[in-house]
């Protein structure tokens, strides 16, 4: 693909990961853009956490804070709801994305809303909220610059923190020129000012603002959002109605719990000690206040999370604070980019969370798309053991359909009777000495018949060939000869 070509903006299916990855690897522009961005993000993270003692102990603490919250999740969710309600926020619960979308639509219809402006929210991506609202005649516009750029190009985010990281300035310049009729410029400041101008008008007009939530504090009934741009503040402050959407796992027990998590989040994500804005919303506008939304809603979404929660080991997936560091350090993600995964969450975190959200039947290759190099687990600020969770998901993936131990949706999606039989045979062979000897005898004598094409293995390796005599035989001969 030549370097001028645009990255294909298609709806990539999560079931085609291998195929998508193959295509992405052929895109030199994409690989160049990703490499540059990831190298810089890795360097920035490390520079912001130079003290190993502080870094490692804080990660441990981050893990404990999250584990503590999950260990009392139902109680904290109820406390969060009670405190938010007391503060005047309306709380809604949704088991599926469909339900969550319905809740948002009902609120929008009650206000006869025509325009929704959205701050960055991965859960709204899970819900495909924009498309849902648009099908019901409501315009939903992204206000995060990166999200806005990819929305203009009908793409999906490629990274959870930097959605348009796969594009370079020239590609954005082309896009603004083509879609907005702006004079062509590759000057990043000028491009951002164009975005600012267009979106400011939308903030002014929008009937509803939507946002995600970084941490929901049960103790005080506070929704905490971090961002650099101010679009999150605009979306949650200017329109008369604010709807926050979040997964049920985002709750923390106390306000002080936010301190270590915030420090870990911003430094792991972008190498920043803090983001420009930390926005703590505890309620709608009071009767005597002059601005702020009149109504604030929170939608708590399950969408497969309670399934991940059910298994003590897989539950650790829900510790995630969505910093993206695992992606930035992943050799696979860096080479294929986020879109190849065909899921909302790409990279290592995507490979462990997406199977819960979408079922293993829709993400069959994700747990295997890893070299298990361990980099993701080493950088994760809340110490999620991503490599071992990947191995665990691989196991769930090959379980027999009739395996009584049902852990997750789509379990056994890679089950193959032939492979199972082969392993059974292999086990038998290795447990029965006489069978092993017979096998060894024939394998060595008939070595000339070994196939030279062993599928994917021989694409990059020479075919294995048994030796003329097995080690056992050679040893025996040697000892007898003595």
């Amino acid at each position, binding site marked *: 693909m030549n370097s001028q070509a645009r990255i294909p903006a298609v709806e990539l299916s999560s079931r085609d990961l291998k195929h998508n990855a193959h295509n992405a690897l052929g895109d030199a522009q994409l690989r160049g*853009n990703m490499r*540059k*961005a990831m190298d810089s993000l890795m360097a920035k993270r490390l520079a912001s956490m130079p003290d190993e003692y*502080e870094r490692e102990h804080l990660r441990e*603490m981050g893990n*404990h804070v999250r*584990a503590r919250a999950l*260990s009392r999740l*139902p109680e904290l*969710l109820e406390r969060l709801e009670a405190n938010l309600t007391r503060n005047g926020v309306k709380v809604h*619960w949704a*088991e599926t994305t469909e*339900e969550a979308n319905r809740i948002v639509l009902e609120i929008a219809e009650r206000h006869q809303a025509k325009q929704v402006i959205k701050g960055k929210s991965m859960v709204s991506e899970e819900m495909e909220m924009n498309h849902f609202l648009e099908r019901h005649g409501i315009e939903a516009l992204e*206000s995060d*610059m990166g999200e806005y*750029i990819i929305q203009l190009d009908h793409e999906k985010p490629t990274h959870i923190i*930097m*959605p348009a*990281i796969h*594009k*370079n*300035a020239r590609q*954005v310049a082309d896009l603004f020129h083509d879609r907005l009729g702006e004079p062509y410029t590759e000057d*990043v400041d000028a491009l951002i000012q164009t975005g*600012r101008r267009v*979106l*400011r008008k939308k903030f002014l007009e929008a009937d509803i603002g939507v946002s995600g939530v970084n941490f929901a504090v049960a*103790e*005080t009934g506070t929704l905490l959002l971090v961002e*650099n*741009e*101010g*679009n999150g*503040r*605009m979306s949650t*402050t*200017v329109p008369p109605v604010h709807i926050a959407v979040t997964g*049920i796992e985002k709750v923390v027990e*106390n*306000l*002080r719990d936010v*301190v*270590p998590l915030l420090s870990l989040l911003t430094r792991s994500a*972008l190498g920043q*000690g*803090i*983001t*420009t*804005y*930390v*926005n703590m*919303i*505890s309620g709608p506008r009071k009767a*005597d*206040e*002059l*601005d*702020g939304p009149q109504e604030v809603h929170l939608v708590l979404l399950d969408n497969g999370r*309670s399934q991940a929660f*059910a298994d003590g080991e897989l539950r650790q997936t829900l510790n995630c604070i969505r910093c993206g560091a695992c992606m930035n350090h992943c050799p696979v993600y860096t080479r294929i980019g986020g879109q190849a995964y065909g899921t909302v969450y790409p990279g290592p975190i995507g490979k462990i969370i997406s199977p819960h959200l979408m079922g293993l039947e829709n993400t069959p290759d994700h747990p295997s798309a890893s070299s298990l190099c361990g980099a993701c687990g080493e950088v994760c600020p809340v110490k999620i053991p991503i490599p071992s969770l990947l191995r665990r998901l691989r196991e769930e993936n090959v379980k027999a359909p009739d395996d009584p131990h049902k852990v997750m949706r789509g379990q056994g999606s890679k089950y193959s009777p032939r492979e199972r039989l082969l392993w059974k045979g292999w086990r038998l062979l290795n447990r029965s000495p006489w069978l092993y000897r017979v096998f060894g005898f024939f394998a060595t004598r008939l070595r000339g018949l070994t196939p030279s094409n062993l599928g994917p293995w021989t694409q990059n390796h020479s075919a294995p060939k048994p030796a003329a005599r097995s080690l056992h035989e050679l040893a025996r001969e040697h000892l007898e000869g003595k």
Partner: protein
Amino acid sequence: MSAKANILAKLRKSLEGTAPVADDYDVDLVTRPWSYPAAERISRLRQLMEAVHTETHLTTAADWPALLEKLLADKQLPSLLIAPSTAHGAQLAAHFAGREGLPRLKAYDRPVEEWKAELFDDTPASLTGTLGAIAATGSLILWPTREEPRLMSLVPPVHFALLKASEVYDNFHEVQQKQRWAAGMPTNALLVSGPSKTADIEQVLAYGAHGPKDLVVLILEDA
């Protein structure tokens, strides 16, 4: 059953027979590396804020209106949004009173719905107070009020903020404890650590993405 009942029932079932994880929160870890001698607090704050494009000035409780007047002139700002019923708003209004040729002072005295377009299109700058600042991260603390509403620190392209030097804390944990945040949060509380920015295009940093393009902090050394 409702979605809520279903979700909670599933979660409860999964936790059956397990004990909650103990609270071993380590205060030292979030405070000790982030503590500074009193003399260094302001310089650290300024250094961090200036590194992200914030302008800071040292002044005094008596002199800041004159400094602000000069900054408004330098930046050629024709008007300034203030909160006249706050002490600092009143002080500035008194400083400007009866003098010709100064930028116009505007009061945020109506619900935003009544003047949204003007706020967005014809309000180039604003002045707000702060509840202090955090030296560890270079952040201002803002708790908007009825007098000084939320959008004052967000919509105008230039935001002037007043900070008392005595109210610079070491770290976020300390602020939460000393100001007893958990006892009652306002509808909206904020940490602001610079002007609005983005690095969404090729990681090139650009300021003034959506919020203020310029943040100017006036630090009152004797207050």
